[in-house]
């Protein structure tokens, strides 16, 4: 089953994978058995010179790494302009990169240098030799396939610069969209690591919320705040589109979210344990965040309900009702569509993730393909598409950073909730503030955050803190966050921000600034 296809002009990269049943709980595709086929089918070359490579996920990652590093070296190679131009030649070691060679490269032969072949890639097909590239002058490159070698390809493939560019582009795109997704086969188990806790928390929260929502639904009819809740479609609840909620729709594209609110039964419905990781020896790409949906250690399965959730319930409340949804304040916005019946038909989404599921694991997960209308996603994602969580933040725009996507946002809030929120945050410490710096950061922004006129997006930043409490780096999540960074009164890098960190670790604090002036902070990770 082809999962994704990348087709720059001179190559075709096809990703195939099986979707794991865990996808339904992860809220995004989780794949296993990912494999790829890369056809270097530059139309300018005769068919006989077209090469097809195949491999698994690990091989794809090493190929991506090799190509990416090679390109970066090519661009940043140490011929800095001044010395290169002023004291030409002298400093540059003779080699394929030297200006001499570069000039000769304009005499560009596609034939592979056979001596190079003989010396460079002996027996690579039997050993796990990662692919690598070497320049052949300015315009040509040799891709040594290493263990990727195919019978017909031989150990080395000559690439023109355009081919290299297309290959790099395809691999980059793929890395951002597919390889970054969780894969069950390769993540080493991380017992009791935070990913696991988040899974547990997610289960807790979904259970709690479900209960809470069921209760709230009873009140929904009379509550004045139901203005923001979609009117329960009485005639045909199954078809009530989630974006019927005006507040949701404000930030969400009108992509029809097929998620009919299905009050789930999370407690009995604990996800089955995934198969144990097979490729634990795989070297994880550094850009890959920890898998969000780590296996649940069986010993802990019976009890997750009792654990306080580590995440916000979808209403975004930091202070209210962390333990259980029934404690929602009266004025709570109901942003969940009301119908209670499970969907009868949803062929594209056999297991829609209930709307109420707090989207915590995807927060750490990389670039999830944005929700697509089912018509599109059905063709482009033959796997069941990830059920879009309610995410008022630019759900159509792919996360700008390939490392950390913007938070899947919590449900929109109303003023009344904000008031509760504001009151609650006066206490300033919430159960989520595992370290004091988190509440200090919230205080900092509560004093300074003034939403700009007309801003509608929620801004999110990942702020890395130094041991001394100053800002080490700020990563805006998404375009809006980058655009508005000037208006946030964000401390500059190096500026004091919070108190010094006691344990010598560098916490990363996620700062969420909402257009209504609300501020949320929480600990992203502490390494």
């Amino acid at each position, binding site marked *: 089953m082809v999962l994704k296809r990348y087709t720059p002009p001179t190559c075709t990269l096809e990703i195939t994978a099986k979707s794991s049943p865990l996808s339904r709980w992860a809220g995004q595709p989780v794949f296993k058995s990912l494999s790829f086929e890369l056809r270097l089918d530059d139309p300018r070359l005769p068919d006989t010179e077209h090469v097809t490579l195949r491999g698994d996920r690990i091989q794809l990652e090493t190929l991506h790494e090799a190509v990416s590093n090679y390109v970066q070296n090519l661009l940043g190679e140490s011929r800095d302009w*001044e010395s290169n131009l002023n004291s030409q030649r002298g400093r540059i070691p003779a080699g394929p990169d030297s200006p001499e060679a570069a000039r000769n490269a304009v005499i560009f032969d596609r034939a592979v240098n056979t001596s190079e072949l003989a010396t460079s890639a002996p027996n690579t097909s039997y050993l796990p030799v990662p692919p690598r590239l070497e320049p052949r002058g300015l315009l040509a490159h040799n891709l040594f396939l290493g263990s990727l070698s195919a019978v017909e390809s031989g150990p080395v493939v000559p690439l023109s610069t355009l081919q290299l560019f297309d290959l790099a582009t395809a691999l980059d795109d793929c890395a951002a969209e597919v390889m970054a997704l969780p894969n069950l086969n390769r993540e080493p188990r991380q017992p009791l690591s935070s990913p696991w806790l988040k899974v547990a928390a997610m289960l807790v929260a979904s259970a709690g919320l479900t209960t809470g929502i069921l209760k709230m639904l009873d009140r929904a009819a009379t509550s004045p705040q139901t203005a923001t809740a979609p009117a329960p479609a009485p005639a045909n609840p199954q078809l009530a589109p989630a974006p019927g909620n005006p507040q949701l729709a404000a930030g969400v594209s009108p992509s029809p979210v097929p998620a009919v609110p299905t009050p789930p039964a999370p407690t009995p419905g604990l996800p089955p344990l995934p198969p144990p990781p097979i490729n634990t020896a795989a070297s994880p790409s550094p850009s890959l965040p920890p898998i969000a949906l780590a296996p649940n250690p069986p010993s802990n399965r019976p009890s997750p309900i009792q654990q306080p959730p580590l995440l916000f319930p979808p209403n975004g409340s930091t202070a209210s009702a962390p333990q259980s949804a029934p404690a929602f304040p009266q004025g709570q916005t109901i942003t969940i569509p009301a119908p209670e019946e499970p969907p009868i038909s949803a062929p594209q989404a056999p297991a829609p993730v209930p709307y109420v599921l707090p989207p915590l694991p995807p927060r750490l997960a990389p670039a999830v393909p944005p929700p697509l209308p089912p018509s599109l996603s059905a063709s482009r994602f033959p796997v069941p598409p990830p059920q879009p969580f309610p995410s008022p933040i630019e759900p159509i725009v792919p996360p700008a950073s390939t490392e950390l996507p913007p938070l899947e946002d919590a449900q929109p809030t109303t003023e009344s909730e904000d008031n509760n929120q504001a009151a609650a945050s006066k206490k300033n410490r919430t159960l989520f503030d595992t370290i004091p710096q988190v509440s200090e950061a919230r205080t900092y922004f509560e004093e300074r955050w003034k939403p700009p006129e007309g801003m509608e997006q929620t801004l999110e930043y990942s702020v890395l803190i130094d041991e001394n409490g100053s800002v080490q780096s700020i*990563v805006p999540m998404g375009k809006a966050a980058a655009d508005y960074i000037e208006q946030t009164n964000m401390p500059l890098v190096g500026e004091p921000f919070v108190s010094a960190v006691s344990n010598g670790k560098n916490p990363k604090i996620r700062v969420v600034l909402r257009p209504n002036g609300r501020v949320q902070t929480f600990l992203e990770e502490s390494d």
Partner: protein
Amino acid sequence: MRSTVKSSAPTNATGQSPNWEELTQKAPEPTQLDNIKAQLDLVLLALEALAEIGSEAMLKVAAELNLEPMVADRVALWRLRQSNPLRKGHGGRKKLDVEEARSLVLISCHLAKQHQALIRRAVALLEQMAEQNREPHTIALLGDYIDRFSNTYGSRMEDAENLSARELTDLALKLLIDLLFYSSPGGHRRLWLALLDRAKN
């Protein structure tokens, strides 16, 4: 999301937001900035020469990317580029700070993206010329580019008289190939890292 359709018009690959955050994760040493200034000015010079981009287009992109605080007008842009220590006259006088350098990176890559089709064609022609063992000059697109680049370089840069036409051609072609990679969706990241890499040496 990128289209899965074979893209015959690579310019479609624009529209990615300026991933400022990717540039903020790694900051240069102050001592590296001089070098970075020179390189950025040259990247823009190559774009100017290839696509006949003027400061008007650069300012327009700055506005699109909400970089006006950094590059508000012609004067500001000029001062930024004039900070290149290789420049004649007041070269290097203006201090270019990191934020300004990042702005120029985003502007350069956005422009490269806008003109990706042209850049791609120029590189394809260059490959073709090389294959046929012909001088790049003999193709109009490349010849014009090299001429414009060399002339502008000569009129702006201090060290121009030390360089042979051959060397200027090499520089122009190397910059052309670099521009291709900067025109990709992650180009700004590549350029920023390349600037840092080069500045280290």
